[in-house]
């Protein structure tokens, strides 16, 4: 049995979408959306990363264990950043000396 060969057309469409999203993220940065600028920047980056992972990295066509590794990675990254922020964001609450 051989591997799933993705059509060139699909790769080109993904490439076009990635370029379009890059142009979007740069343009949106110059518009004042308040805190939504951050959500837009990270949201677009997330969509771009998902396109690369699903098509260029063949996760859409591969075994089902790969998404599990990805989900585990995302979970650990969330723990790393989330718990670090939970610490830094709440240090002022109790007036701990040496903050």
């Amino acid at each position, binding site marked *: *049995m051989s591997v799933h*060969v993705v059509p060139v057309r699909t790769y080109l469409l993904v490439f076009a979408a*990635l370029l379009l999203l890059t142009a979007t*993220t740069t343009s949106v940065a110059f518009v004042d959306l308040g805190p939504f600028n951050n959500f837009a*920047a990270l949201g*677009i*980056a997330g969509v771009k990363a998902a396109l*690369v992972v699903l098509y260029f990295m063949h996760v859409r066509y591969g075994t089902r264990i790969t998404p599990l590794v990805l989900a585990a990675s995302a979970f650990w990254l969330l723990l*790393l950043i989330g718990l670090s*922020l939970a610490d830094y964001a709440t240090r002022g609450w109790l007036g701990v000396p040496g903050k």
Partner: protein
Amino acid sequence: MSSDAISLPAHQFDSLEQQREVASLGMWVFLATEIMFFGGLFAAYTIYRVSYPLAFIAASRQLDVTLGTLNTAVLILSSLTMALAVRGAQQGKRAPMLAFLPLTMILGAVFLGVKAFEYHHKWVEHLVPGAGFLLPGADARHAQMFFCLYFAMTGLHALHMIIGLGILTVMLAMAWRGRFTSTYHNPMEVSGLYWHFVDIVWIFLFPLLYLVGRHG
């Protein structure tokens, strides 16, 4: 096919297909450790940006958005050419690999060249953290923190690109010798995963470093 090509699985595998899946899975687990490796820097970035939002805006505005956007496009294009090189390998065709691997390497080198140009500019403009750092209108210590992170994150990313160029050189030599077939091309598949991962890191670095508080 050349006699160099592998047609039987290694003894611990039942089939070449199983061997291929295991190779990819192993690479994905390695990439998970890479996510945590870069994750430490992303966590540090998040904490300092939350702590010093104004200095981060002032410092980020010193970066060249045009060059950053251009480099993002260059890297995305290199991911496309890499995907097409891997596609050639999957079909056991030598010509697409010999065309797209060098093209991918050239685009990677262009990215690094633009990066070097930007680094030089930061040096000339006194934006390298240290005794010579100069950024009027912003808290110098906090702004230096941004540039420490900028150089650490883009530097580590550039190091990954340089390693990637080394890997692609080996792939090109293997492709030249006809080592890959439609049933055995694990090194190409796995190298592609690495190259795309480095692209994804940049996809996040670009908005976080270049596009902070650009409006207003």
